C-alpha cells in the first residue's frame, strides 16, 4: 500500500477519529496528538489493513481504547481543559451569539457524562452511526448501547430543561 492509497482510505474518517478523541480528552492538542498517533499506528500496520473488514470501525475502537488509556495514564493528570473551539459555525452571527452560551452549556453537560455514555452520544448523535456499528465498535450488545444512549439523552434533557427554566448558567 502506498502513501496515497493510505490517505484516501483514511481521509473519510480521520475527522471522526479526531472528534471522538476530543470528546474524550477535551483538549484540542491532546486530541490532535491522539489522532496522529492512531493514524501512525494504522500506517505502521498497513500490511494487515486488508484483513480488517471495516477499517473505520476498527479505527474508532482503537481511538476509544487509546483515549481511555490516555485518561488513565499519569500524564493525563496534567491534561489541560480547553474549550474555546466553538467559533466556527454556519448560522448567522446574531444567532450564533445568542446560542453560544447555551451551546457551550450542552458541551459542558456532555463532558460531565460517564465516559461510556459520552462515547455513545458522540457516535450516535454526532457521527450518526447505526446501533449495530456502535455495538461492534464498543464490543457491547445493541440493547446495552440503547440503554446507555437513552440514559445519556435523558440526563442531557433534564439538565437542559433546568437551565432553561431557571436561567442558571
Amino acid at each position, binding site marked *: 500500500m502506498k*502513501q496515497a492509497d*493510505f490517505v484516501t482510505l483514511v481521509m473519510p474518517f*480521520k*475527522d471522526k*477519529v*479526531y*472528534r471522538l478523541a*476530543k470528546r474524550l480528552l477535551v483538549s484540542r492538542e491532546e486530541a*490532535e496528538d491522539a*489522532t*496522529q498517533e492512531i*493514524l*501512525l499506528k494504522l*500506517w*505502521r500496520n498497513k500490511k494487515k489493513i486488508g484483513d480488517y473488514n471495516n477499517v473505520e470501525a476498527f479505527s474508532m475502537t482503537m481511538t476509544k481504547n487509546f483515549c481511555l488509556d490516555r485518561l488513565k495514564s499519569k500524564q493525563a493528570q496534567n491534561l489541560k481543559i480547553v474549550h474555546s*473551539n*466553538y467559533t*466556527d*459555525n*454556519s*448560522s448567522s452571527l446574531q444567532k450564533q451569539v445568542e*446560542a453560544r452560551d*447555551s*451551546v457551550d*452549556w*450542552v*458541551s459542558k453537560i456532555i463532558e460531565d457524562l460517564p465516559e461510556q455514555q459520552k462515547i455513545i452520544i458522540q457516535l*450516535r*448523535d*454526532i*457521527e*450518526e452511526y*447505526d446501533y449495530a456499528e456502535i455495538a461492534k465498535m464498543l464490543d457491547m450488545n445493541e440493547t446495552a*448501547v*440503547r*440503554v446507555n*444512549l*437513552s440514559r445519556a*439523552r*435523558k440526563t*442531557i*434533557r433534564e439538565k*437542559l*430543561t433546568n*437551565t*432553561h*427554566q431557571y436561567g442558571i448558567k
Partner: protein
Amino acid sequence: MALNDIEKLLEKYNNAETSQQEEAQLKAYFASDNVASHLEHYKPLFQYFSQSQQEQFTKDVPLKTKKNTKLYQWISVAAVIVLMLGFLIPSLSQDQKTTWADYSEEEQQMYLETKQALAMLSSNFNEGTSSLNALELASENFNEGLERASFVTEFSETTNKLLKN
C-alpha cells in the same frame, strides 16, 4: 411537520428508539426558525450536534518518519563497522618483517646498492662545498679593499676642511 409528531419523536429519541431518518427529521426541525416555545431548550442540543460535525482534523501526519529512522540506524551500524576496522587493520599489519635477517638476499643487495649510491651523492656534495671555500677567500679580500677605500674618504674629508680654512 405537526407539533404532535415532533413531541412523539422526542419521546422516542429520549428512549433511544429513533432511527437515523427520524433523528435527521428532528435535527431539521430544530435547525429551522419556528420551534415551539416549550421545546426551545432542545434547540442548543441539536445545534451543538450539527456544529460538532463540522470540526475537522487539520494537523499533518508525518507518515515518512519511520523510514528515515531506519536509514539512520543503518548509518550508525556502518559507522561502528568502520571504527572497528580502523582498530583491526593496524593490529593485523604489526606482524611485518622487522630485522635484517628477515629480508631475502636480493632485497639486502638492493639495500646496499642504494646505500652506496646515496653515499656517492653525498661525497659529491661535500666536494662542492670545499670549492665554495675559494669564494670565501675572495670575499675576505674584498673586505680588505673596502677598508682601504675608507681611508681614502677620510683623507678627502680632511682636505675639504683644510680648504675651508
